[in-house]
């Protein structure tokens, strides 16, 4: 006992053994670099370079398109080939800046940085915004916006989401072990914005070595603490994480700040450290390459914009031709249409599987067993909601709290009838949310 958690959830095979012991290797790309203008929630970035321009590593190539947006920087030096329609990892063709990599990695000269205690709140927030930091766990919400709640004094918890509850992914795990100092520094920067907050590193207890290392690192940090979470999916879902750590529960119409919390994941905090302590923009991240079709699974420090094909090659290529590719984790990631897509700010992993479990398990009739109800962290009834969704009964869907779904996919995972519950609920949710906004 003593482990923090929430009600519901599932225990899938975590698959982390394939890559967890592989230290992060830097990957220098050879091919063209592709930068989608929309790698975040909010307005797409506006290109500030044109075809033929020579750019340096760390040079801005697209500026934020508004307050809820983020700029994009070149991660290599080279020549802009133009603005093209390319596939993003989720399988949609989107507007991208394409840069021919000259392989020199000539970097811009960054402005010198001031020590943290000499910077004002606005200066720090501005640096985070200028560096293009967004939530790198997968949501891609601009971090500056997240760090600007209406009443900063009322924030009493900054939670570092170190759960990494998605199976197979070990990027955050390696970061915690190899970049502990940077992670703690990122937390220190965020804490400097919130005078009344305590910084909590919330780690699942299957990462005992991280807990130990972090405990050691925060020993002299009076405002920081490490908390062990029960290993369970979706322990890293924002609402469930906040509840596990603080016992405060928020619903779909509330923000974490309403519960006095701000949650940032490991990669994001390290990005904040790089932006504020080193003055460098976001140009790289750690990505896990794993799955049973990959020859040598591992973790790589990848320049944003690198083609996924180069990432697979770096992991020794495919053992056999995979049947399914996933960008992100197996629970919430996207099935990829093609390998020919760039790593973006929110790409935490690429997984290649020899067999697709979804297509080999056809849907059958619901037998009302209640396993989805048991597993649902939002405590709603997935099987009924999926029925309403299929009948397009929006009224009942909303009345039965369909909007509370966090789309974690636990229901589809446990369903013995193999029903695509999350897919049906997710689709209806999009429509219902859009209609709600219209009102």
């Amino acid at each position, binding site marked *: 006992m003593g482990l923090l958690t929430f009600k519901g959830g599932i225990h899938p095979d975590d698959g982390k053994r394939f890559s967890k012991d592989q230290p992060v290797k830097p990957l220098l790309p050879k091919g063209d670099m592709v930068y989608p203008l929309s790698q975040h929630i909010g307005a797409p970035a506006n290109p500030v370079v044109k075809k033929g321009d020579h750019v340096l590593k760390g040079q801005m190539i697209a500026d934020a398109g508004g307050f809820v947006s983020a700029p994009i920087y070149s991660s290599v030096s080279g020549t802009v080939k133009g603005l093209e329609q390319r596939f993003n990892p989720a399988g949609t063709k989107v507007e991208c800046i394409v840069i021919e990599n000259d392989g020199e990695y000539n970097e811009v000269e960054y402005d010198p940085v001031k020590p943290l205690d000499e910077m004002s709140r606005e200066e720090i927030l501005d640096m985070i915004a200028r560096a293009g930091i967004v939530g790198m766990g997968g949501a891609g919400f601009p971090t500056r916006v997240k760090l600007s709640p209406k009443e900063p004094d009322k924030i009493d918890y900054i939670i570092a989401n170190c759960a990494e509850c998605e199976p197979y992914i070990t990027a955050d795990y390696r970061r915690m072990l190899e970049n502990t100092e940077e992670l703690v520094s990122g937390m220190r920067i965020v804490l400097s914005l919130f005078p009344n907050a305590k910084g909590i590193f919330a780690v699942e207890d299957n990462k005992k070595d991280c807990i130990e290392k972090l405990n050691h690192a925060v020993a002299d940090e009076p405002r920081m603490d490490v908390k062990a979470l029960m290993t369970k999916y979706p322990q890293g879902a924002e609402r469930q994480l906040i509840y596990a750590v603080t016992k405060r529960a928020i619903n779909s119409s509330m923000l974490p700040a309403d519960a006095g919390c701000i949650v940032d994941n490991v990669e994001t905090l390290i990005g904040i450290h790089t932006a504020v302590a080193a003055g460098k923009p976001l140009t790289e991240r750690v990505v896990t390459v794993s799955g049973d079709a990959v020859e040598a699974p591992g973790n790589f420090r990848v320049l944003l914009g690198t083609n996924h094909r180069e990432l697979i090659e770096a992991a020794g290529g495919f053992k056999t031709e995979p049947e399914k590719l996933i960008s992100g984790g197996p629970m919430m990631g996207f099935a990829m249409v093609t390998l020919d897509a760039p790593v973006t700010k929110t790409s935490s992993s690429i997984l290649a599987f020899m067999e697709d479990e979804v297509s080999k398990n056809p849907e059958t009739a619901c037998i009302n067993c209640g396993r989805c*109800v048991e597993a649902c962290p939002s405590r709603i009834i997935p099987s009924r909601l999926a029925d309403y969704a299929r009948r397009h009964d929006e009224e009942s869907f909303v009345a039965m709290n369909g909007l509370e779904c966090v789309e974690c996919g636990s229901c589809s995972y446990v369903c013995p009838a193999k029903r695509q519950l999350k897919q049906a609920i997710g689709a209806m949710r999009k429509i219902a949310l859009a209609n709600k906004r219209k009102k």
Partner: protein
Amino acid sequence: MNENYKVSASPHIRDRVKSSNLMLLVVIALLPAAIFGMWNFRHENAWILVAVTTVSAVLAEYIYEKLMHKPITVNDFSAVVTGLLLALNLPPTLPWWMGVLGAVFAIVVVKQLFGGLGQNFMNPALAARCFLLISFTGDMTYFVYDGVTGATPLAELKAGEAVNTMDMLLGNIRGTIGETSVIAIMIGAMFLLLMGVIEITIPASYLLSFIVFIVLFGGHGLDAQYITAHLCGGGLMLGAWFMATDYVTSPITTKGRIIYGICLGLLTGLFRLFGGSAEGVSYAIIIGNLLVPLIEKVTLPKPFGKGGEK
């Protein structure tokens, strides 16, 4: 380069548990009771009735789906469960064609006409048993053991006679094919619990509320012998562990399941103590099935962040 990747919405992994596996586990769990019943009533050739009823249920499903041009679902084992459960609820001497009729009624009328697996609002096996009970009351209440015809222990209990609870536990008594041996039923029930097929919620709330009811109204107070006789008699154990726990016809939430179990316990007690016949489990469960939509209406869970997180 061949890039024919499969594309689907997340999640991309699935638990190993499948509906058909669950049904198969229920069939396996019914085997101790079925095998004991067939041996216990070997002089009555009970095995013929069990075989004919089970096969008829599967055939009825196959033929109906074939005729209606629907996908054939007999390999999900749900028809086997229905057929076998019905057979275990029949007296060993019942003419075989009545078993066939019951199986066809269960599958075609109760299950398929309402939309097939997952759509029936009553347990098909129990509905068929009640259908047969009303149609062929004489044959359905004719009980024999070791060639001697007579009343079931439960009926004797109701008449105020003494019963042998040890025989009731072992199953050396008159009754339907599968209901007599509490030990055989419990072996199967424990198997279902251990395999995670059923939860203890419904049987526990059912049996506990039933005990409370007969303690209060049975006229024997806390007499352990009387309570044990009631628990081991009739179809209570088979019903509580194998039919009240039917996923399709029970509530989906834990709270709903507790209320459902209590309703079953009270109804069973009411029918047994104050009804015309000694037995009441079948009708109690069927009426309980009909109460499920109401129970679900009042047990709608509170979502996370609105009180449901605790």
